[in-house]
Structures are given as structure tokens and as C-alpha cells.
């Protein structure tokens, strides 16, 4: 990566030329153009191509960054937060994740002039593939990014689409793009926003209800829910909650679309046991893991291995390899589903008999373990 200063795009020759379309196969290098602080722990990184290029993609799609961190090459997928209607740049929006290798590296190191490799765009989570008369965008945390790309696109096309954008955040100060979303509501008659905050934090004047998104709350915000094309992105637990809510409401799920943070759920095989998260997100919600012998119940995020959550909660459980090879952490699962990517430390018939390796299992719901 080098800090090459290019002539400004505003120079008369460059400005008058019509740039070609960006093609990741040929132009696989992006240059950081700008870093914008969105909230206290969220930054947007704007990139441009090495030579003038126009970015054309479907709003909601993602790119894959290839980063070299501490000598190791790491690939991470990030949904694009900018709209294709601002084709000179492309942005991703990243929340700093405690312990997150990539998010922290980006926050601490990425600055204008730095080059990175990028692949894509890819993905089929886009309002352009499911055009409807009315949309409901549901997002949790930094799951806002693909929906922001869609909202910005619909806004800038000037067609006054009917959109309700319901975003869930930890507290008012964690709402990403709050002011830009508000600005879009001023310029249109059919674009509305609603924010659901877990708690008010320091925003004492926050008047909206606090807590988690629920069906009654959603119905009160969007009474015509059933007539809308729904796009949802957020932590797995958040989306599971939304799906359950919509099913309870009798919603026709053919009109429900979601972007998973976990690539496993999209059927993409990961080379490593670790699940790669789009957006390096820390999902807000978590599942309960009950250990019957220890009499402990702990919280475990859907992107977290049960062993890690148990250790973080101060439990001392036997383990060794932490990658599903040795089987030292083998435990009997009494209830609940998990996603396990083991390395040969457990046999299929043991799995069939209800055993799991907690070092490489992530909860898909509340789980009870005999340990």
C-alpha cells in the first residue's frame, strides 16, 4: 500500500472524459478516498478506482476485501453502503468490533491514499430484483448498510417510492446514518423512518419506546405490513426474531428477503472453521446456554462459539485444541440447535447421539448442555 497522490478528479481533462465501468477483475485495487466518522464506533470508508471508473452494482450487494494483516491474508465481505447513483466512489460502513481483527485494523489504519484489493460486487439481496410498490426495510446494528444503499438509491432516483425504514440500535447515539435518513424524509412524501432503541443511553430526551422490536410495535409502525416487500439485514438472532414475528403475523414469506451476516447460511463453503461475518458485526441479541450440571446459564451470541462464551462468563470447562480436532470439550446437548464445524474430533454417530464439541459450535437457538 502506498500513498500515491493522484491528480484531482476535478481537473478539466478528467472531468470531461466519460470514465469506463469499474470491473473488479481488471481494476482489483481500490484507493481510500475518505474516512467518515458515522457514530462513536462506526466509520464509513470511501474508495475510488485507481483510474477514473464508474461503480455500477445493485444496491444491497457486497464486495470482498482482501487484506494483509499481521502477515496473513484475510478476506472479509462488506455490504456496500453507498448507492450506485453516486458512481464515482464506493463506500463500506464498519463498526469497530471488540477483538475484531479486521474492523479494528480498518478503524486504526485505513486512511486516504491507501490501496486495498477488492473483489465483487456480488449478492442478490437487492430491491432492484424485487421491485414492489411499497417497501419495508428492517435493519439491526450495522445491518443498516445494504438497506442504506437501497434507500439512498430510491431517494436519488427521485421516484418517491413508498419506503418505511425501521432500524434497531442499542441506543440513540448508535443509530447509523441518523441525520442522512432524516434528511431523506424531508425531501419526499413517502419515505418514513422509525428507530427502535434497546435503551436510551445518554439521550434523555429520546421519546420513542425502548426495548426490542416486537410484532405489536412493528404493526403500530407499519399497519400495512402485509402489502410490503420486506428487506431485512442484521444479526442472525435479530433476523430469526423478525422471521418468527412475520410468520406469527401470517406474512407471505415470498415477499421477505434477507441478507445473512453469516456466509454459512448462504451455502458458501468457508475454508476455515471460523464463520466470516459481513460487516464484522457484533450482533446485539444472544441465546441462552444452560449448563445443567454446573447450574449456570450464560448468554452466547449467534456468532460466538459456546466454549468462548462460557469462558468469557468465567466457566472453567475442559478443552484443548479449540478447533474441533481433539474432542476434549465433547458434551451432551440436551436441547437446542447449533451450527458445528468440527475438525474430525467427533464422529457422526456421536453427533446423532446428541454430542457436540462446544469449541466449534455456535447456537442457532437457546441450548441446554449436560456439563
Amino acid at each position, binding site marked *: 500500500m502506498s500513498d500515491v497522490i493522484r491528480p484531482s478528479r476535478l481537473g478539466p481533462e478528467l472531468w470531461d472524459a466519460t470514465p469506463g465501468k469499474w470491473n473488479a477483475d481488471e481494476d482489483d485495487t481500490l484507493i481510500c478516498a475518505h474516512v467518515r466518522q458515522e457514530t462513536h464506533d462506526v466509520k464509513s470508508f470511501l474508495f475510488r478506482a485507481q483510474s477514473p471508473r464508474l461503480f455500477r452494482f445493485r444496491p444491497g450487494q457486497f464486495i470482498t476485501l482482501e487484506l494483509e494483516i499481521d502477515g496473513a491474508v484475510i478476506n472479509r465481505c462488506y455490504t456496500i453502503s453507498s448507492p450506485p447513483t453516486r458512481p464515482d466512489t464506493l463506500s463500506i460502513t464498519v463498526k469497530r468490533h471488540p477483538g475484531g481483527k479486521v474492523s479494528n485494523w480498518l478503524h486504526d489504519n485505513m486512511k486516504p491514499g491507501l490501496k486495498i484489493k477488492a473483489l465483487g460486487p456480488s449478492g442478490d439481496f437487492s430491491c432492484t430484483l424485487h421491485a414492489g410498490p411499497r417497501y419495508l426495510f428492517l435493519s439491526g446494528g450495522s445491518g443498516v448498510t445494504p438497506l442504506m444503499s437501497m434507500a439512498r438509491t430510491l431517494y436519488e432516483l427521485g421516484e418517491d417510492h413508498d419506503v418505511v425504514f425501521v432500524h434497531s440500535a442499542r441506543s440513540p447515539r448508535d443509530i447509523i446514518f441518523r441525520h442522512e435518513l432524516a434528511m431523506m424524509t424531508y425531501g419526499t412524501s413517502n419515505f418514513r423512518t422509525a428507530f427502535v432503541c434497546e435503551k436510551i443511553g445518554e439521550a434523555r430526551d429520546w421519546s420513542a419506546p425502548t426495548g426490542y422490536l416486537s410484532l405489536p410495535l412493528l404493526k403500530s409502525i407499519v399497519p400495512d405490513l402485509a402489502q410490503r416487500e420486506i428487506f431485512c439485514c442484521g444479526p442472525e438472532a435479530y433476523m430469526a426474531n423478525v422471521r418468527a414475528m412475520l410468520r406469527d403475523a401470517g406474512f407471505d414469506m415470498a415477499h421477505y428477503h434477507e441478507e445473512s451476516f453469516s456466509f454459512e447460511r448462504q451455502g458458501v463453503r468457508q475454508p476455515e472453521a471460523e464463520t466470516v461475518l459481513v460487516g464484522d458485526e457484533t450482533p446485539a441479541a444472544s441465546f441462552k446456554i444452560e449448563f445443567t450440571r454446573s447450574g449456570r446459564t450464560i448468554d452466547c451470541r449467534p456468532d460466538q462459539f459456546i466454549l468462548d462464551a462460557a469462558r468469557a462468563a468465567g466457566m472453567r470447562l475442559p478443552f484443548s*485444541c479449540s478447533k474441533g480436532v481433539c474432542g476434549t470439550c465433547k458434551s451432551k446437548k440436551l436441547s437446542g440447535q447449533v451450527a458445528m464445524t468440527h475438525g474430525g*474430533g467427533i464422529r457422526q454417530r456421536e453427533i446423532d447421539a446428541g454430542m457436540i464439541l462446544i469449541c466449534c459450535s455456535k447456537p442457532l437457538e437457546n441450548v441446554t448442555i449436560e456439563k
Partner: protein
Amino acid sequence: MQISNELRAMIGRRRPGYSLEAPFYRTKEVFDLDMDVIFGRHWIYVGVEPDIPEPGDYFTVPLGRTSIVVVRDDDMTVRAFHNVCRHRGARLCDGEKGSVGNVVCPYHQWTYDLTGKLIHTEHMGDEFDRSQFSLKTVHVGNIAGLLFICLADEPPADFEQMRQEMEPYILPHRISDCKIAYEEDLIENGNWKFTMENNRECYHCKANHPELTVSLYEFGFGYQPSPENADEVQAFRELIVREHARWESCGLPSVEREFLDSRVTAYRTERLPLDKAGESQTMNSKVACQKLLGDLTQRNLGGLSFWTQPNSWHHFMSDHIVTFSVLPIDPERTLLRTKWLVHKDAVEGRDYDPKQLSEVWHETNKQDGALVERTQIGSQSAAYQPGPYSPYTEELVEKFMSWYFKRLRAETGHETATVSPFAASA
């Protein structure tokens, strides 16, 4: 291994046709020599494929102070390792049988894959070269589902010859399509050679094995002719000729092949008629399992016997298989491991009853164990001296001893010069 001049002299002066001088059955020096040159350098029968039907299944083989673990790996290949962690030597796999993902030492969790490769260690530093600490492998030989191991670096090559010759006999019984219906470990209080001597003759059968002799003819292993038994022996000989012709025509090799002291990997086989109903080694000589083995359709196929030096014998009937493995524990104790196999689709309680299936050999083993103990006790007497084997009924005992001494002499550098004591009578 260093051996004393006294033992060297004893090996040199062994008198063919006689049992051995007492120290061969009792001393630690001879036992250590046996474990080194007999059990350490020859093919040892240890179990069957149905012991480990699925990947990750293992069984352990106790052999003196050594333990071997036999596993089935993810490619369904059978492998064997010394059951010793390369870290500080802890025993790896417990019990007689089990199932693992990878082989993990319970002490410090050193983890080996099923090919024996060390794949995980903690706290050994970044420079630690795991490739230098794979499990120590043991050779595996497989004859149509009978599993043998050899601890030698270079195992006897004539195993392959035995395999090629024996497979046509055993394959119709299809061991790999069997399950173990019953198994039993019996510790006999005697030297392993007493166990083998006892097995290689039926001199003792009539008086000691009321259950076994329901179906087993005592003539199959040598008999002294006399006017009283001449008709019976002649009838048995004619029966063998007739039955062999019938079985061979069904594609079941039956004729005797005998290399009990003429090869390093020594064996004998023959399909022998059974008495009464002629079907199986049971209390009424009828099948103990209604579902026959492999594609067999006839019940009266007698019993195919297979004896190997130094430590096994096997009986294959139309409905079930019984296999025996002799594993020395110490100079005066021996483990006899017996397994009863039936077709894997046979249903317990409907097609067979494990008790009924196993009772003949369960009783016979107990009786043999008592006989072995009786010899062991007797050999401790100051009055004990080697006694003569019967040239009629104990020829196979002599062949066992002849093989044993040939192997001792070959492996300890003695000249081999043996003459069959029974040459004149043969």
C-alpha cells in the same frame, strides 16, 4: 535380546516328541524371549473386522506389557499403533473397545489422527516439529476379515502366501458381513504354550469336553488304530472323502493344507465333518443361528478349521464363526479371547440366542482353562520332567513345539537341526 548360557543350552538340548523342561513354562527369562522373538516378530491373530465396523472404532490388544490399538480410519483402512503417547508415554486408548474421533491422549491432549500423525499439541512452542512424533505403527495383515498384527520392523513375508491360500476357504463365510454376537475373555492360569499344546490335541476331549464332543469327531486330529475303533475310523475317513466332494462341488474348498512347522507363518486348515445333524458346534449339532452366513444356503457344511502359529484357531460353520486368540500376560497367565460371529442381519432373540450360540465353547474353554491350570501347577513340582507326546493324537502338539524351537533357534542364532520324531510312524 541377551539370553543366558543356561537357556541357550536348554534350547539346544530340547528333545523332540517331548514336552518342555519346566523353565520354559515358568521363568521370566523364557517369557521375555517368547515375547521378543515369537510374539514380537511373527504374525499374531488379534481380532476380526466386525470388531471395528465403522471409522473411529478401535480395539486394544494386550500383549505382555505391550498394548496395541487397532483402529479403522476414515478411509475404512485398518491400522494398528502402539498404544503409547509420544509425549511422556501415557497409555492412549482405554478398555478393550471404543470409538474415537481422533486419538487423544487423556493426559495432555496430544492429538493424533487415525493415520497416527500428531495433529495437535499445546504449549510445545512454535518451533516444535510435530511430524517427528507420529504414533509408532504396527503392521496389519487381513485374511478375509481376520486381523493379524506384526510388531517386527520387517514382518515375515510369507503371510501373503497364507492369505492367498486361505482366502478361498474363508471368503464364503463373509466375515465382513458378520457381527460379534458374543465375546468372552478368559484368563487361564498357565503359560501360553500350555494353552496352545492343549488346543492342538483332542486326546483329552472324550474325558473332558462332553459339550464339544456332541458335534466334534475326535478322529479329526489323529487316532491310534485298534480293532475296537477300526470301523468308526474307517467310516470317518469315508465320510471325509464324501463330504469333501460335496462341499468342493458347492465351491467350498475343504481339503487339508498343513504347514504347521514348515513355514515361518505357519498354519493348517481343513473342513471337517461334524457328528449327528452335522450342522454346527452346538449342543444338538444343529445351527444356532437361523440366518446363514454370506450366501450359504446349506446348513450341513461341517466346520472349517484354521489353526495358526503361534496363537490362534478358528471354526467356520454355516451359521456362525468362533475365533480364538491367545495373548500371553506373564509366564504363568494367558488371556484367551473368544468371539462368536453371526450374520450382521441376524436378529438376537429371533434368529439366535447368544447363550445357546456360545454355550459349547463357553463350557469347553472353562474346561480347557482348568486343564491348563492343572498342567501349570504340576510343572511346578520338583518331580516334573518332560513327558512324551502321543505319536497318534499329539502330532500337532509336536508340530507346534517344533515350529516354536525352529523360530527360537532362527531368531537367536542357533543352528537348526531337527528331525521329526514321528517320521517313522507317518
